[in-house]
């Protein structure tokens, strides 16, 4: 069953089709949202809100992109909005000028490379971080990322470049050979 038939059945009120649509996309959506928000309860809430909005707006879907991309755009919007609210409390994100201090090891040969990398990813600006996670971690193409984030694919490429450069710079003192 293709997306068009599935959508038609959902719009006709077929509960089986609704569940089929949900099953087809929930895993990808959940993975992506969890990567962004990093919290199980928050990710669950975001995915729930994503599908509620998707079913509510399904009649407006014009088929200009894949259904998964359309749902992903909703999910990214919901997740980033949720993250902005949480960041006011967490204060995890740092400016570009402050970020190198995170990756700089207290002593040479710091064994906790994973923690340093994750800290550096946390310190990335929101746009860089989202593109890096979606492209390098989840495997989306720049076109898909552009559609989901509402940016051009070129912008997605540029942000990925800057995100990688930033991570290399952050980890240079820790692993010069990797930078």
């Amino acid at each position, binding site marked *: 069953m293709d997306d068009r038939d599935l959508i038609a059945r959902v719009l006709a009120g077929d509960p089986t089709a609704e*569940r089929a649509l*949900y*099953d087809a996309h*929930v*895993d990808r959506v*959940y*993975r992506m949202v*969890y*990567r*962004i*928000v*990093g919290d*199980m309860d928050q*990710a*669950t809430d975001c*995915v*729930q809100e994503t*599908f*509620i909005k998707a*079913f*509510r707006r399904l009649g407006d879907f014009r088929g200009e992109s894949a259904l998964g991309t359309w749902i992903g755009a909703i999910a990214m919007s919901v997740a980033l909005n949720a993250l902005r609210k949480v960041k006011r409390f967490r204060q995890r994100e740092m400016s*570009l000028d402050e970020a190198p201090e995170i990756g700089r090891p207290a002593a040479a040969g710091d064994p906790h*490379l*994973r923690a340093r*990398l*994750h800290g550096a*990813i946390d310190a990335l600006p929101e746009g860089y971080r989202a593109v*890096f*996670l979606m492209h*390098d*971690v989840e495997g989306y193409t720049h076109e898909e990322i552009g559609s989901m984030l509402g940016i051009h694919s*070129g912008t997605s*490429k*540029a942000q*990925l*470049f*800057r995100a*990688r*450069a930033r*991570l*290399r710079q952050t*980890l240079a003192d820790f692993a010069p050979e*990797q930078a």
Partner: protein
Amino acid sequence: MNDFIDDDLIDERNGEEPLDPTLAALARDYNAPPITPREAIWAAVERSRERETVVLPLPARRRIARWIPIAAGIAALLALAFAFGRFSSPGAAPSIADRPIAADSVASDSSRLPDAPATLANDAPDTETLESAPAPTPRRATRTGAPATDGPMQLVSDEPRDERSVDERGNAPDAFDIVAARHLSRSEVFLTLFRDALRGDETAELSPATARQLLVRNRLLLDSPAARDPRMRRLLEDLELVLAQIAQLPADDRTEDTELITDGMEAGDVLTRLRSATSTGVAATLRQGAL
């Protein structure tokens, strides 16, 4: 770092260059998602969708709630406008006819007249009351008691209301009829005192100013709906002539003029017609043809 990096340059240099495999592997551990809680999420989605289909959407409820006070306000405004229109229109027969008579002021004014003829000037009619259309008094006032020279006159309302006057004219006496009745009553008192003053040679006490004020009101009434009845019009026209003559009385040597006025009053039977009108009320007078 340059924020304006060309995309081709990125691809050419290291835009497509992936991270080191070690870093890429470590990056995949970043916020590694657990197993998707499918059923929990689906249950929440279903509950939310059921609420949406059963419960009226909140914006719609807000729209309805917002219109309730507006509709109530419009209804109240319409009711007020309707009530105001009924009570202010000349054809508001039943409600006005049921109101009690308001002849107290006429009675009180009349009661002072015999005491001092010179005070007629103070009892002059207020021309503004005609223009402002005072409250209607559909109940007919009947004058009883002794003549004006023997004691104070009283206008009382001891007769039952004559509902036929309302029915026959199609509507109740309006404000102009009420003002006309009051004007005729005052004119009658004034002319009676004037005649008595002439008999008692007290012309010096008469005030032409009172006549002029009565004349002004008389002319206003002639131009008003109160004069729509031909009999009332004739009475007002005769009264106008008499009042005009009195108002133009010279200060000295006015014996000839006063005789002319008296002759005119008797010839036109003005005073009798005035008494008839004020004793039975304007509406009844019109109906009975007394004028």
